């Protein structure tokens, strides 16, 4: 097999405070005296400046036609790695050899101009992504069809809904047909139907023998789409393994520890406001916060959050899923009509939404709790599909007299009766 990407000892250093996403511009006055000396040289080795290594000594090879998942918590360096691979930013040390064109779905819609029509933006965006005019023209109809914005194609995109905008942007990027496709969190947005389409498109890309790098916080998507994954922690590659093993490693080592997930301010996207998640905990019947429980115990889930402004129609809920990404159930705190009436508008304040998972429900194994705060049909404020992991032990569960694993995520204690019919 041919190697599509060879990453050799890549490191990337940022000046603290100058990391992406933070705003700090130098003061011209401070540096004007040093100007002549500095102008033709790169800034380095200045006294009193602190650096952080966003990536440290990362090496891996990827064969052509493979799909590689990249897992890591926020700030671990996943995005920096993708930026280096897509040549947005240069590594400080090391080298990457990339065979073929790298197409990035890092941020779809880059270079879209609000005043231009959908048609004009398709051409512009295609050119920015490195397509030739003729290539774009040849795929134009396909792009429009994929994006489902057909009748608005000659309307300025500033009049598009955010969903239409996103679909159009993704459509252009998805039809770039590069040898190597880099996919970031793009799938976290858009409606379910569109997500399905995007995943389908990604599958097509992989099926055509092209290489895909897929980054997501959505473990179920990673598990579905990739066979192999790498785990990045604090800028270092800590694990490369078949995806299920890598996901387990990540869940066991990452933030899912000790039965409590705490969100720091920097973990929460600005778009979540006015909803601010604080923590998610699981308690056993004695009120102890833990991460492993007995199947025969009832668990108490506590979601703590703050509203900085009132929200109408807010529902805060949890997903429970298996580590393989299959959903077991979804439940919201205002599922009951009387609570829904009472909290039709939640005033600003500090809240605790609590519920119980009854005893004798779950099978042994590892489970993932996700969090969702949304107003139905209006806005999804916050979503974390991988907020917390917990382990269930089947001691005392029904059927333990046989030492066999039971199929399925549930192990309910059902009230069997046996009658002898004649």
């Amino acid at each position, binding site marked *: 097999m041919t190697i599509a990407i060879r990453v050799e000892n890549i490191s990337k250093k*940022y000046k603290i405070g*100058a*990391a*992406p996403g933070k705003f700090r*511009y*130098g*003061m*011209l006055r401070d540096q004007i005296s040093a100007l002549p000396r500095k*102008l*033709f*040289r*790169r*800034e380095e080795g200045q006294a009193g400046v602190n650096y952080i290594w966003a990536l440290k000594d990362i090496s891996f090879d990827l064969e052509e036609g493979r799909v590689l998942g990249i897992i890591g918590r926020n700030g671990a360096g996943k995005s920096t790695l993708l*930026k*280096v*691979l*897509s*040549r*947005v*930013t*240069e*590594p*400080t*040390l*090391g*080298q*990457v*050899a*990339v*065979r*073929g*064109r*790298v197409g*990035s779905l*890092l*941020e779809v819609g*880059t*270079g879209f*101009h609000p*005043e*231009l029509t959908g048609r*004009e933006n398709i*051409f*512009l965006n295609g*050119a*920015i*992504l*490195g397509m*030739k*005019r003729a290539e774009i023209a040849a795929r134009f109809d396909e792009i429009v069809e994929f994006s489902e914005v057909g009748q608005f194609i000659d309307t*300025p995109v500033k009049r598009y809904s955010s969903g239409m905008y996103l679909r159009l942007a993704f459509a252009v990027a998805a039809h770039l047909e590069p*040898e190597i496709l880099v996919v970031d969190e793009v799938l976290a947005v858009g409606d379910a139907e569109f997500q399905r389409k995007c995943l389908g498109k990604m599958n097509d890309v992989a099926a055509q023998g092209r290489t895909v790098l897929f980054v997501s916080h959505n473990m179920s998507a990673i598990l579905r789409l990739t066979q192999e994954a790498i785990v990045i922690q604090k800028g270092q590659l800590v694990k490369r393994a078949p995806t299920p093993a890598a996901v387990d490693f990540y869940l066991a080592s990452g933030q899912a520890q000790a039965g409590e997930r705490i969100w720091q301010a920097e973990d929460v996207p600005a778009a979540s406001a006015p909803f601010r998640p604080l923590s998610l905990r699981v308690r056993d019947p004695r009120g102890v916060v833990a991460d492993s429980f007995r199947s025969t115990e009832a668990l108490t889930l506590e979601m703590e959050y703050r509203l900085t402004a009132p929200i109408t129609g807010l529902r805060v809920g949890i997903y429970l899923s298996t580590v393989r990404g299959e959903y077991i159930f979804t439940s919201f705190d205002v599922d009951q009509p009387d609570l829904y009436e009472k909290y039709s508008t939640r005033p600003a304040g500090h809240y605790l939404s609590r519920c119980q998972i009854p005893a004798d429900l779950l099978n042994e194994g590892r489970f993932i709790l996700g969090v969702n705060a949304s107003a139905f049909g209006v806005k999804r404020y916050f979503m974390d599909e991988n907020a917390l992991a917990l382990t269930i032990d089947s001691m005392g569960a029904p059927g333990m007299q046989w030492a066999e694993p039971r199929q399925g995520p549930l192990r309910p204690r059902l009230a069997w009766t046996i009658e002898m019919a004649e």
Partner: protein
Amino acid sequence: MNEPTTVYIKPTTGFAALNLGDLWQYRELVLFMIWRDIMVRYKQTALGALWAIIQPVMNMLVFTFLFDRIAKVPIDGNIPYPLFSFAALLPWGLFSTALNTASRSLTSNHNMISKTYFPRLVLPMASVLSGLVDFAIAFVILIGMMIYFGVAPTAHIWWALPIFLLLTIITALGVGLWLSALNVQYRDIGYALPFLTQFWLFATPVAYSSKVVSGAWQFLYSLNPMAGVVNGFRWALLGIGTGPSLELWISIGISLAVLISGLIYFRNMERTFADTI
């Protein structure tokens, strides 16, 4: 599908990093960005491309009133003042628009820079070149005025105008490269630009004749490439002055020096654009 080429991504150093081959690969993007700038410039304006005419014409009227009627600044030749100033306002307008949009081109497209790879040079280049359309539109007015005032262009116009136009572009691009790269790190540039443009306008014989500048200052004047451009335009179009001289060569030399140093500085800073912008 062609056999894919292997790209090596590694820390770059020195002049080799200028990477003009990459720019050639992305030449279509330059055209697309020019096209975008032009398409967007007069979107949602009632007068549209008329603004390309209104701006220099209004300037000309103000200058005529201030410098001709009130200050009675002497001009050479038998040329009516409106035509005298308009012939200079055209290249000046091209230069100042190009300089301003190029200097802001990186910061106003920061999204593109922090998300995708392309040679960053594309942005200031496209900004500078897109000004040519406005120039062409306003040029029609100049032709109309020359017919109205009965002034015939000199025979040099065919070779001299393209050369002076090129000199304008080179100067604007050179200074624009410096300022756009500086602007990424120091947003002070955005505030200094209007002042710089205004100062440069006064230091260029747009509203007045370079004849009024006394001997000692003449040399300093030749250091301003735009002075050479404006004089050249008047010479080729209206037959004023003596035409290309040593001063023009100084202008060209300075423009090229600014352009080359600008390219080097830009390329050096380009490495960190995505991180600092």
